[in-house]
């Protein structure tokens, strides 16, 4: 997909696509409603206790990440796996493409992996002549459309079933209706065939368990389980922070992840896959590679943004965000959209390129309350704005001047009172029946969609003496 560098252009494109916005509103509305119902069932107080526990687990892991990474790597090696520690996306891609070449792979089947989207893996494998097939239904849809995911857990949320039917009909031998059962039936049939001829399987990773080396993958379609069972060579890609100490911690995280993401008590398939196939085992890979990707994560350790590494990619903050619900995911411009993307994109890809995402939020704080691991996204959005202005000196010139002026005026009562009286004196050409409907910049920005009250005939500080005349000091 073409990357449009201006956020403004991207979101205007989104706003002018009513079918997409309707699909996103439906999708987020459904997920949000289901999540709320599942929390109601658990009980809000128990839910808070769950979140506290999950936050503590994630904080502990992030604070001891070196130790757990070492333990994880040791255990994967012990179980016959190979490990690649990739500092950058390029290193990870390099490792996987070399492996594909070595195996002379023709057919590569993937389950959903946001990290693989982050490092643009598919494109590089296709360049080698491999057929890369996305087996997650949503990923398969957007692969056919030549698009990127618009939601962390529902990558094709922005499409409606008519659009999906068009995409499927372009590759289907028989004509499909727009019925969801028909569409799913086609995808199932089509992908089943592909599963039988896997050369290399690639999966994502929800959680890697440090003390056993097990990789946990949660899917509702079972596709990742088939891939881990049937691939002769299996590659799992994970962000370096996606570790849990032990399987007890997994119990907490799985129930929190499912409820936050979709409102399910548990995801349908929770697969734990450990190392290579033993002689007496019927399935599992003969060769296993774990690719652990840093790609900007480790530089956040020890900073005020460290807690963003708590994220378990449930997508709950997207559904909670009024901005996401009204522009969808593609407008954010990088792989992670919504509030988490507005924080991760500038941190991973630079404030220069993505700093304006920190302003793509009303600062309503709904994301922090939706977050199962209590990432203070709201505080981080403030901090990013402050970093942009003060640390990187990248504030807009007009704003720099305006806030210097504001500060000088509002720190003094007499300057404040003088300037607001001047403003009131000169507002008269704009005021009609106590309201302003048209005006020059910058208030024209406000007035495009809304009216504005005029400044009062008498300011409160002017009527206070009258209100207070009976008061004895």
């Amino acid at each position, binding site marked *: 997909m073409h990357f449009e560098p201006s956020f403004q252009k991207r979101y205007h494109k989104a706003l002018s696509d009513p079918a997409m916005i309707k699909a996103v509103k439906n999708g987020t509305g459904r997920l949000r409603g289901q999540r709320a119902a599942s929390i109601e069932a658990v009980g809000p107080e128990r839910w808070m206790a769950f979140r506290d526990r999950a936050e503590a687990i994630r904080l502990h892991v992030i604070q001891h990440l070196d130790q757990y990474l070492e333990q994880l790597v040791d255990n994967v090696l012990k179980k016959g796996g190979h490990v690649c520690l990739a500092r950058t996306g390029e290193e990870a891609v390099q490792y996987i493409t070399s492996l594909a070449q070595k195996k002379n792979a023709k057919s590569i089947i993937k389950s959903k992996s946001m990290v693989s989207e982050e490092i643009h893996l598919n494109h590089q494998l296709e360049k080698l002549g491999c057929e890369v097939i996305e087996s997650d239904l949503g990923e398969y849809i957007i692969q056919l459309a030549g698009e990127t995911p618009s939601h962390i857990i529902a990558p094709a949320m922005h499409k409606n079933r008519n659009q999906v039917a068009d995409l499927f009909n372009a590759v289907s031998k028989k004509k499909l209706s727009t019925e969801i059962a028909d569409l799913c039936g086609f995808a199932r049939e089509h992908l089943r065939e592909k599963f039988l001829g896997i050369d290399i399987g690639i999966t994502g990773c929800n959680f890697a368990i440090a003390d056993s080396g097990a990789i946990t993958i949660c899917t509702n379609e079972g596709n990742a389980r088939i891939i881990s069972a049937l691939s002769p060579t299996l590659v799992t890609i994970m962000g370096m922070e996606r570790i849990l100490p032990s399987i007890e911690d997994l119990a907490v995280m799985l129930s929190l992840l499912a409820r936050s993401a979709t409102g399910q008590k548990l995801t349908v398939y929770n697969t734990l896959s450990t190392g290579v196939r033993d002689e007496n085992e019927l399935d599992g890979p003969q060769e296993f590679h774990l690719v652990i990707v840093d790609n900007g994560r480790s530089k956040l350790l020890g900073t005020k943004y460290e807690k963003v590494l708590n994220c378990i990619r449930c997508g709950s903050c997207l559904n909670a965000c009024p901005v996401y619900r009204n522009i969808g995911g593609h407008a954010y411009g990088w792989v992670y959209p919504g509030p988490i993307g507005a924080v991760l994109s500038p941190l991973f890809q630079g404030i220069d390129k993505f700093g304006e995402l920190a302003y793509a939020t009303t*600062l309503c704080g709904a994301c922090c309350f939706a977050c199962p691991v209590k990432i203070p996204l*709201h505080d981080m959005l403030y901090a990013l704005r402050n970093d942009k202005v003060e640390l990187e000196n990248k504030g807009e010139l007009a704003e720099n001047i305006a806030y210097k002026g504001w500060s000088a005026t509002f720190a003094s009562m007499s300057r404040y009172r003088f300037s607001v009286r001047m403003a009131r004196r000169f507002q008269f050409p704009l005021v009609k029946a106590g309201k302003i409907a048209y005006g020059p910049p910058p208030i024209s920005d406000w007035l495009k*969609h809304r009216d504005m009250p005029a400044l009062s005939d008498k300011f409160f500080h002017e009527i206070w003496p009258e209100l207070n005349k009976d008061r004895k000091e």
Partner: protein
Amino acid sequence: MIGGGNLKASLFITCIADLMYADVGKSMVRVLKRNGVDLDFPEGQTCCGQPAFSSGYYKETAVVAKKVIEVFEKSERVVMPSGSCAAMIHHGYPTLFDNDPKWKKRAEEFVAKTYEFSQFIVDVLGIQDVGATFNKKVTYHSSCHMTRLLGVEEQPKILLKNVKGIDFIELPFAFDCCGFGGTFSMKMKDISAEIVDEKVDHIIATGAEVLAGSDLTCLMNISGRLSRRGSRIKVMHVAQVLDQGGGKNAF
């Protein structure tokens, strides 16, 4: 002396109420005095600093915040007609002075005595019924910073529900943002308009005659959109509703 109570408090009117909603200030003064508060209005107050803080201009905000802290240094309690301005003080001020222990301490003392209007009435005065009468169908928008940052959720609704004659209807998705977001409403006006339209649709669907709220900037956004869409729904601050009908505590 009006009110006659022993409880002293200082009014921090906030810039928006001072300049655009003086009537809200008047209602607030009347309601508080009727309910026994000895209210003063310290000279020198301007703005809490939220616009600059939210835009990332912490240095500029700190200059104004120090002035605000000084102005209210002698006040026993401070009461404000805005949830987000109170939240700015509660959350923003300690952040601003993270690296300045002397001012951080002064900021924390200020935080400890600062209340939003409905919070002050219910939690400090211990009053749940101010004795107002208002024969209208009213719904209420829960502003984000007041509920999520300040943690004040039920107090304004308790007060409204106890108004005589009121037909109070819960607003669906009351906790969803109205799309204001400070400079967001101007910088990303077209997204903001979509969000406020959702809010306005929900408000209209309740059939309410009045939308009440506790945060004047949210109300300015919602009423501005209602007005542009030609709606006749009246937008009022909670203080204005509580000021209706004089009431049993009227002097």
